[in-house]
């Protein structure tokens, strides 16, 4: 088990040692090491993406009482391969009126941040590709690049649906980034660091011998996790926040004019971005690579990490299968009038929890601090939209 735990790192080191004994200079080895790590991470995430693209369809199908893809390969698992082959060989159409350079660049720009943010996630015990002191900040800073890409895609297509979709996407992403960042800050605040590995380390250990010290088990952590989750859904443009791609209104939003490989790139970047934000969620609130129960710590940490990521991704599909889309004004109102105040409440609650000694009393105090705003905001928010039970008249 110990061996398995260290397997990825040891494999890499062994490979480098062999190369070193062959006389490859030191500097070159460092670069090679980096390339190996990058390759592994990208490879794993591409694999996850491929798996996800078919699993999502299968999960949705199961929710809807059907089988889902099951013809291509065993259990339909080769479906992404088929999709990939088809996408690659598909004709690449660029609309005549499009801005060709920007149209070409947009998927590239989309891909870059999605891949960059993978660098700072702690995949397992001592397995962080780049140990950054302000890793969380890096995550959000680089993630902002996707907005540029979406805007480029929407504008360059020179199609009214695309521009409208892109504008919606930007408005939505800017609005949801704020509660997203603030709820992430709570975790950083309690851990006392912006470094993801420190945050994960702070969630180690078990209370009463079995209850993990994950932030999600505390009232403020739970609230912040929910807020972060909602923000993450919005950031990755997933249902119910998929307004930019609102099919019934806007064709396919900013992606309307993309075909073939460029579309595949977008698709891939979106999924990898989604995995990245799931990874962040796991890191911040679900204890990263920490095992959920003491006796399970023997299972390698990186398995836990990816297991949790897959679980979060599954819940995202579940959400998609359940909820209808929001309307654009509700969406923004929800971000500014509910999520933002709630994230401040979570922030305050985290502070209370910290200063009240992190014990049962702190637990209760922080619960009150998030509970009251939730009720007040929730009720006022729902009554604002005249959401009410109704009675109906019947005539015989």
């Amino acid at each position: 088990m110990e061996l398995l735990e260290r397997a990825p790192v040891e494999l890499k080191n062994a490979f480098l040692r062999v190369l070193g004994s062959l006389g490859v200079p030191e500097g070159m080895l460092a670069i090679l090491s980096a390339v190996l790590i990058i390759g592994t991470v990208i490879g794993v995430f591409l694999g996850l993406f491929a798996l996800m693209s078919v699993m999502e369809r299968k999960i949705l199908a199961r929710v809807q009482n059907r089988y889902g893809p099951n013809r291509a390969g065993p259990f339909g698992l080769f479906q992404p391969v088929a999709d990939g082959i088809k996408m690659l060989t598909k004709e690449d159409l660029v609309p005549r009126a499009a801005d060709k350079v920007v149209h070409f660049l947009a998927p590239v720009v989309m891909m870059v941040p999605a891949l960059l943010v993978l660098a700072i996630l702690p995949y397992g015990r001592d397995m962080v590709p780049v140990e950054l002191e302000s890793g969380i900040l890096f995550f959000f800073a680089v993630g902002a690049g996707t907005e540029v890409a979406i805007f480029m895609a929407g504008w360059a297509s020179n199609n009214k649906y695309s521009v409208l979709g892109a504008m919606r996407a930007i408005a939505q992403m800017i609005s949801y980034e704020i509660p997203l960042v603030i709820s992430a800050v709570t975790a950083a605040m309690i851990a006392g660091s912006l470094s993801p590995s420190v945050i994960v380390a702070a969630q180690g250990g078990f209370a009463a011998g079995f209850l993990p010290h994950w932030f999600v088990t505390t009232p403020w952590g739970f609230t912040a996790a929910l807020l972060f989750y909602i923000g993450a859904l919005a950031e990755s443009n997933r249902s119910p926040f998929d307004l930019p791609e609102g099919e019934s209104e806007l064709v396919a939003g900013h992606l309307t004019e993309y075909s073939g490989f460029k579309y595949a790139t977008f698709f891939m970047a979106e999924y990898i971005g989604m995995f990245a934000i799931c990874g962040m969620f796991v890191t911040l609130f679900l204890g990263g690579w920490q095992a959920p129960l003491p006796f399970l710590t023997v299972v390698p940490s990186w398995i836990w990490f990816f297991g949790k990521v897959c679980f979060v991704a599954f819940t995202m599909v579940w959400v998609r299968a359940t909820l209808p889309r929001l309307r654009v004004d509700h969406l923004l109102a929800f971000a500014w009038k509910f999520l933002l105040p709630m994230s401040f409440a979570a922030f305050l609650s985290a502070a209370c929890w910290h200063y009240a000694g992190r014990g049962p009393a702190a637990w209760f105090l922080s619960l009150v601090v998030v509970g009251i705003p939730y009720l007040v905001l929730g009720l006022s928010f729902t009554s604002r939209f005249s959401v009410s039970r109704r009675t109906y008249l019947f005539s015989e």
Partner: protein
Amino acid sequence: MICESLKTCFDDPGKFLGEWFVLLPALVLLLAAAAAVVLRNLIHATLCLTLSFIALGILFIALGAEFVGFVQLLVYVGAVAMLIVFAILLTRPERLAKSDTALSGLGPAGGALAGFVTLGVLLGFLFTSPIAKKSLPGPASAPVAEIGHALMGDYKAALIVVGVLLTAALVGAAVLAMEDKNS
């Protein structure tokens, strides 16, 4: 020279990359900024401006100011650039085609003149300022914690003032927007 750099590349890639890691963003920054000024297409200009923001952020990071670099990216690329884009898109794209502004009569000469004057003023201040006389400190990273302590400690008064100011601005903006809706 190329041979030499190639050699460094092979022997000590870190150093080699480090150099280029500073030079390249700076070059991109300058080119993108210039393009942002020169390009006629408003959206292209904005995209170039965004690129220059990104390059600046990378430059900060390369110079060791990680925190500032990330904040630059987060705020400028994530928010400011997008707000500019929004402003452009909301002012009706069809009117953008013929951008007849009041200054367009002056032609490129006027623009160049304004640019050079600004540059001159900035350079003048730079060279007359006492900071420029000090010798440059070596690359040192400022840890996030230190910045935090500084903000909450030495500069807390300033922070509070800035906070109040921003809140007031926000409230003002909200009030303005509401009036607009009512009318």
